[in-house]
């Protein structure tokens, strides 16, 4: 598997002294879905946020190790984080639409990046909406407030908003936790389609979703990566006892 991101011995600690990640190493494959699963509070989100430096907004005090993406070390404090975040997009657990129109949400990131020209922005918006399977539902109401959309539509808009920036990596932190089964199915189908072109890292909201979506999967427990393997293998023949117990539902 060609690796898009290589994480080497990454440790992250918060200012209150709690250690969130300890010595995590793994390779994230290009054009595949990598799932990070495990019990709540284990450090999955922290690991995800290390990939686009959103941890900068939290009170993280120490980071050690390396995260390589296209030859750049994402841990480097001198890194251009704005450029990084355009390359590594993020979808959050709660669909947060910005208080703008549907179109405004889609073009927001591009406008910040200095992209000008109505037709360029509109083309990008349409492409992103089509990729997120939302175009048919909103094509006639692009100027309405995004907040008027349903929860499932809002979350697909959040995904489309990331796609509009044409990133290389998409991070998703429990993107379907607030959605009904139909919307969840739609988002999952979209992700399966998107993985042909993007590197996707997903923190699933359930073990079932982890098993459904994973090309590769890592089990994260108490800040450590316990096991990392192709999805088929880890959910059927886990090597580590702790992974096995979790997958079989003995805790978590």
């Amino acid at each position, binding site marked *: 598997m060609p690796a898009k991101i290589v994480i080497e011995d990454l440790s992250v600690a918060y200012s209150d002294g709690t250690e969130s990640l300890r010595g995590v190493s793994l390779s994230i494959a290009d054009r595949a879905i990598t799932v990070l699963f495990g019990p709540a509070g284990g450090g999955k989100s922290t690991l995800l946020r290390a990939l*686009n430096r*959103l941890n900068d*907004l939290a009170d993280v005090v120490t980071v050690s190790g390396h995260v390589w993406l296209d030859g750049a070390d994402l841990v480097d404090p001198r890194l251009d984080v*704005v*450029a990084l*975040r*355009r390359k590594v*997009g*993020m979808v*959050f657990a*709660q669909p*947060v639409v*910005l*208080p703008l129109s549907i179109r405004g949400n889609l073009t*927001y*990131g591009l406008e*910040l*990046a200095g992209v000008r020209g109505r037709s360029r922005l509109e083309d990008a918006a349409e492409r992103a909406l089509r990729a997120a399977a939302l175009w048919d539902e909103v094509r006639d109401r692009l100027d309405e*407030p995004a*907040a008027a959309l349903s929860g499932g539509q809002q979350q697909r808009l*959040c995904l489309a*908003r*990331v796609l509009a*920036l044409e990133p290389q990596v998409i991070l998703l932190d429990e993107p379907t936790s607030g959605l009904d089964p139909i919307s969840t199915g739609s988002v999952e189908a979209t992700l399966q389609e998107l993985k042909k072109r993007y590197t996707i890292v997903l923190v699933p909201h359930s073990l079932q979703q982890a098993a459904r979506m994973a090309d590769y999967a890592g089990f994260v427990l108490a800040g450590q990566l316990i096991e990392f393997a192709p999805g088929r293998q880890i959910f059927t023949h886990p090597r580590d006892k702790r992974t096995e117990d979790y997958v079989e539902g003995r805790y978590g």
Partner: protein
Amino acid sequence: MTAPNASPTPARHRRRVQRLGYAFLTLAAVATVAPIVLVVAHIVVQGAPAISLAFLTEMPRAGMRQGGVLPAILGTFWLTLGTGALAVPLGIGAATYLAEYAPESRWTRAIRVALINLAGIPSVVYGLFGLGLFVLFLQFGTSLLAGSLTLSLMTLPVIISTAEEALRAVPNSFRVVSISLGGTRWQTVRRIVLPQALPGILTGVILGLERAAGETAPILFTAASFFLPRLPQSVFDPTMALPYHLFVISTQVPEMPVRLQYGTALVLLAFVLGMNLLATLIRSRARARRTW
């Protein structure tokens, strides 16, 4: 076991206490509203006969016992505008710094304590401070400029604290999302946070300026003049102003027609209540449109 109605006395007692408590709360509510209604009604009834186009657009004549209050209206207008021009950008800037940029530290806590204390300083102290700094030391003289600067100082704490509150009320998730989409902190503040906080900020601005418009003490030594035969020609000229004019014609001018005193009070009241109404309108319209 006793049925509930087997002991009628406590139940009846509870009902009586309930009624008494309710009556007291109603009285308290009425007691807060009644004075406002009475004051406004009294001034409207007494002052309305004095109001005419001439009263609003003419210079005072005959030792202010005849004619209109135009210079006082314009003076208060210019002073309020000048205060706004100075205090609004400064206040919003300081609030943005406190809410969006400054990390929580001993330094920001000190700023906040200073703001709370500034808001509590009596207005006459601001007046004396303005006299010392702007009128005398900086040699602006008794002028629109010195008065506006003094009123700005007095208004700043109000504007800063309400604006900071409005900024903090904007959900943090908007900031995180904006930054995750490659926004810088400033882009996030300018394109998302400030527009969302704007109605709240405007409300604070208007309430602050309204207080500035109605104050007498800060302009007493810094801007206001007893009587001026002509309107101010520059920011370095002294000015007449409604609150000070009202004070003058109510206490300093013998044989002043009461009608004109009430008329002046009515104009000042309308000015201030009008601003208050505007603030309320902005706030309720923004609330109806808000999506969070």
